[in-house]
């Protein structure tokens, strides 16, 4: 009964004033907040001081949003070089929470939040959850892993702010997830889209009936997914499947999220300034073009970012949405402008694999990552060209090499990978350069 009542009612807007703000007023607000952010970074963060000095920029000079295009970008490399706390703009006594990026090369990136930052984050998550249709009547089943990753905690506090009930389930153990989902009557599911399909598969395998579940809406993020996958999730779980976007370097989930129109994710533009650039030239692209998303935070205290290159490829739409929101919408991300892969929701860089292979026998074999999606689960196979350093006449030794490499990769990447040994020149090279990645997933 509840199901019908909610979809027929006018969809609620969490922060009506902010989400339907006139675009001129929004631009004024953005400029004012941008000036504050630039001042704060220029005063408190040596990395930004150096960047500004290098291009002769004075934060006080900014009188229009267009001037942002003259500023240098911030990259993941900047964050790594300032590991762990070098990019923080407040003393540690003002930091009340620390999160970290999921598996990346070498050192992770560390982000911090003040009490005000956490408050805004919670509000922004409540915003997109409300836009997706979650209300105080919902029981929200969070199947993201709780930990350094921002996903679970972000959604957790947003759910509480709405007044819905949180089930802090965390990841793994699908059978138990199903039991709890059924018995506790979870109505909203939070996880990666591929895990949603794993849940659907297990339901079928265990002969469970969708009628015994109370699910009606899903909030999926942390990895790219297609419209086709959305349709599959919606039909197999009998829910409305919504997409949301965020990255820990910027805040976490809540940067953008879909409303029930499901035609793009509304960006919280009162807190984040979005630009689309050409990833090769760095030039800002005209409205509506596809390019790399660059984000400047407008209200963050502990970890402000100025022109942070997300490496995510998307497109922005500034038209007012049917839901009434004036906030710009970003399309589902279409890929990356670097070589990062998202496999089972985990960030994987090919260089991590190079490092592991190098550690084992001290040599650098050619390799290729082959990623498939089989039964809705990502599968990573690493094809390694056998050279004389990693070739043994004894099968026992050869197996030991494979096992050790698989074991090390699993611990470094955080996901399992199969190693397949292949003959030299088994990997096709383009202009002498081996292609490192073969992504066969149909997203």
């Amino acid at each position, binding site marked *: 009964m509840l199901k019908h009542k909610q979809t027929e009612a006018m969809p609620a807007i969490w922060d009506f004033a902010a989400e339907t703000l006139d675009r001129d007023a929004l631009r004024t607000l953005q400029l004012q907040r941008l000036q504050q952010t630039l001042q704060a970074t220029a005063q408190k963060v040596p990395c930004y001081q150096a960047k500004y000095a290098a291009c002769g920029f004075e934060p006080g000079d900014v009188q229009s949003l267009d001037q942002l295009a003259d500023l240098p970008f911030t990259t993941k490399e900047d964050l790594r070089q300032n590991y762990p706390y070098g990019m923080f703009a407040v003393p540690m006594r003002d930091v009340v929470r620390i999160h970290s990026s999921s598996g990346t090369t070498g050192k992770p990136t560390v982000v911090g939040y003040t009490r005000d930052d956490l408050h805004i984050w919670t509000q922004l998550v409540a915003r997109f959850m409300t836009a997706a249709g979650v209300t105080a009547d919902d029981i929200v089943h969070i199947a993201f892993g709780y930990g350094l990753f921002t996903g679970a905690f972000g959604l957790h506090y947003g759910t509480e702010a709405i007044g819905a009930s949180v089930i802090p389930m965390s990841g793994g153990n699908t059978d138990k997830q199903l039991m709890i989902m059924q018995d506790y009557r979870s109505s909203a599911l939070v996880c990666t889209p591929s895990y949603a399909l794993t849940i659907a598969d297990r339901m079928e395998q265990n002969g469970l009936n969708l009628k015994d579940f109370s699910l009606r809406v899903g909030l999926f993020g942390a990895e790219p997914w297609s419209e086709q996958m959305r349709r599959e999730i919606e039909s197999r779980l009998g829910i409305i499947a919504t997409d949301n976007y965020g990255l820990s370097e910027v805040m976490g989930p809540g940067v953008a999220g879909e409303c029930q129109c499901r035609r793009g994710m509304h960006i919280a533009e009162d807190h984040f300034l979005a630009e689309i650039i050409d990833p090769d030239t760095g030039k800002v692209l005209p409205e509506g073009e596809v390019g790399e998303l660059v984000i400047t935070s407008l209200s963050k205290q502990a970890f402000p970012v100025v022109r942070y290159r997300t490496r995510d490829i998307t497109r922005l739409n500034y038209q007012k949405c049917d839901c009434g929101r004036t906030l710009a919408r970003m399309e589902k991300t279409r890929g990356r402008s670097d070589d990062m892969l998202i496999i089972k929701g985990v960030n994987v860089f090919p260089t991590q694999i190079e490092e592991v292979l190098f550690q084992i026998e001290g040599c650098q074999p050619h390799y290729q990552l082959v990623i498939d999606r089989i039964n809705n689960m990502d599968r990573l196979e690493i094809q390694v060209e056998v050279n004389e350093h990693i070739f043994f006449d004894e099968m026992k030794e050869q197996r030991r090499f494979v096992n050790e490499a698989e074991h090390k990769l699993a611990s470094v990447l955080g996901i399992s990978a199969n190693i397949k040994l292949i*003959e030299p020149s088994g990997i096709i090279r383009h202009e002498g350069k081996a292609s490192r990645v073969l992504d066969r997933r149909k997203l």
Partner: protein
Amino acid sequence: MKVEQISIFIENKSGRLAEVTGILGKSGVNIRALSLADTSDFGILRLIVDAPAKALEILRSHSFTVNKTEVVGVEVNDRPGGLAEILSILDKNSVNVEYMYAFVERSGGNAVIIFRFDNVDEAIHVLVRNGIKVLEGEKISGI
């Protein structure tokens, strides 16, 4: 007393064995003995040939991954229990056999078995001390 064996990495797919033997055949290298250990993905082909250095060079030039290893050729009486006697001697002396395979041709009236040991020198010492005939490398290649 040691024999040079070459091992070749091959993917477990049709035609690879024919490819290797074909390349060697065209170059006039004669295969004297052969063994293959395989998994579902790949195999390790081990060969005793009449010209190991040449075989290595040719296979490398065809982009095969190859290694050479020292193995031991042992004459075994061609009668029931002949091999068991030798294995029992090795076992009593704690000599570990990694793998072994039979030679196609004979040496006189005896069979020839190729052994891969952990410790080749120790193994040869044990065999000789127990009166087992270990074949010279050149002799094996010439059989």
